[in-house]
């Protein structure tokens, strides 16, 4: 990629690149320094404002929030994947009355904001007597919206398995169901693994909607912490850093998986991520 648009640089180009490097570095550092100076001038860098985050109880509280985030992400990912697999099979079905509703679900859900779904579960359903526990108020809408995304990932994976594989399965006398389960799906699942990981990172980010539901995940824990100690900005900076570290590690994992397995290209991103 890097040699698509330029040749091996000569002496003059190298000098220009050096100048651009220095200029770029200086510009970035200057901007950062300016921001930090303003930040400090407003007292936001005062040691007393950061000191609580050098103590264990604050971290213990945030880490328990992270644990709840992980729990919500894992449960909604499991639900969304199960539903997604069913939807993917539905969309590939030969029967119209199965195919159409599955397709309609996927197409409709991808145009509804997750927050709106959360509001429905939070405010609308209790009025009709269905008041889910907090945990499910977060995980159910996330599962509903991510199921469509997982369905598209699985469908791409299944379609990427060569036709011959399925035909061979049928030829050796397996039923269509067995062929799908024993031959096509295992290969498809391996190929879409990186996409599944990156969609799961998106889902993990979605759990920050717990902020709205007041389910004690990481961002909401930050909110409770901020009402306790009044350190709004510091708290959210720490929370952001935790998200960054966790998600960057997961994304890295996705890239390692991608590099190790010559699979299909991940399907295009069609779904909102929070």
């Amino acid at each position, binding site marked *: 990629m890097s040699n698509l648009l330029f040749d091996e640089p000569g002496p003059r180009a190298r000098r220009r690149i050096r100048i651009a490097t220095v200029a770029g570095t200086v510009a970035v550092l200057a901007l950062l320094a300016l921001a*930090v*100076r303003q930040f*400090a001038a407003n*007292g936001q*860098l*005062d*040691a*007393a*404002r*950061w*000191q*609580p985050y*050098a*103590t*264990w*109880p*604050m971290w*213990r*509280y945030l880490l328990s929030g992270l644990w709840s985030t992980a729990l919500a992400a894992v449960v909604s990912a499991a639900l969304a994947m199960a539903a997604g697999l069913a939807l993917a099979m539905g969309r590939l079905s030969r029967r119209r009355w199965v195919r159409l509703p599955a397709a309609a679900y996927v197409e409709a859900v991808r145009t509804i904001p997750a927050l709106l779904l959360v509001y429905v579960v*939070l*405010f609308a359903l*209790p*009025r009709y*007597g269905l*008041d889910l*526990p*907090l945990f499910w108020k977060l995980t159910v809408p996330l599962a509903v919206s991510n199921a469509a995304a997982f369905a598209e990932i699985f469908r791409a994976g299944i379609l990427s398995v060569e036709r011959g594989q399925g035909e061979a399965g049928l030829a050796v006398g397996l039923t269509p169901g067995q062929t799908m389960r024993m031959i096509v799906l295992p290969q498809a699942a391996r190929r879409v693994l990186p996409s599944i990981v990156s969609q799961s990172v998106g889902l993990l980010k979605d759990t920050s909607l717990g*902020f*709205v*539901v*007041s*389910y*004690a995940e990481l961002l909401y824990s930050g*909110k*409770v*912490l*901020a*009402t*306790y*100690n*009044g*350190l*709004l*900005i510091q708290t959210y900076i720490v929370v952001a850093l935790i998200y960054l570290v966790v998600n960057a590690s997961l994304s890295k994992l996705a890239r390692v998986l991608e590099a190790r397995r010559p699979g299909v290209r991940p399907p295009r991103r069609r779904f909102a991520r929070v």
Partner: protein
Amino acid sequence: MVSLKRVAAVAAVSMIGLSACSGTDSAAPAVPGEPKAGDLLADAPVAAAADILPGSTMEKIKKRGELIVGGSLDAPLLSQQNPVSGEIEGFDADMGKALAKYIIGEPKVKIVNSASETREALLANGTVDVVFQTYTITPERAEQVSFAGPYYSSGLSIAVKKDTTGITKPEDLNGKTVIAGANTPAIPAIKKAAPQAKIVTFGSDPECVQALKQDRGVAYVQDETLLVADAQKDPSIQVVGKPFTSDPYGIGLKHGDDQFKKFVNDWLTKTQSSGLWQRIWKNSLGTVVQGEAPAPPQIGSVPGS
């Protein structure tokens, strides 16, 4: 840049293991509720065995060994989780513990964090036994839930930045941008008192305070006690005028459970006559308001209670 060095210095110091903070700093977190709830409730009344009628809600709670309370985790002075101890502290929280002690003999509560829109449903389907959450008694709500109490009476007030002029009463808010907590009773109250005000909402009290300081609105409407606490923590804001609403807070109970309502009202009378109510107030709201505990409101004095 000096501050950067200070941060580094603090980080280094804390790594050595010195986590005790000087405590003189104004930005250091306030730790309310010094006497632990246990000491506070040491001589709290406990119901006589005869009062726990067979087949009643009280008996069910006593058998379970835990009172399930609908409440909040992020309402300072009322029901705020302390991240250090994990305990939930404040006036509402301690009242809940006192009721648990009255029924069970021990202050064992489980707080179910509830959004204000779902409290009726939580009570109706029995997810929670009682709701202690700045639950204003109104005749409309009383059609869906029963209210014991009122156990506390409060009102909404207005906070502004120190240098603001021209805002002393709610009518002054007309045509201005006003900050309020999302889904709080402040929103309908502002609409009523100042219909031309533009309301902008944020999720929590510190967010609203920060927004006020950053001029996202000229005034912040919230429960007076909370505002007094905010003004005390942050000298750049002040509370103006007197509360412009009167909100009698009730204890939400399942609709039609008159037996339990009478039981809770009896308990409330006992906490008030024994001085426990006043001690709980002193320990929470009283830490930011000067003077003695106010007279508790008359039980059953409000339409809907």
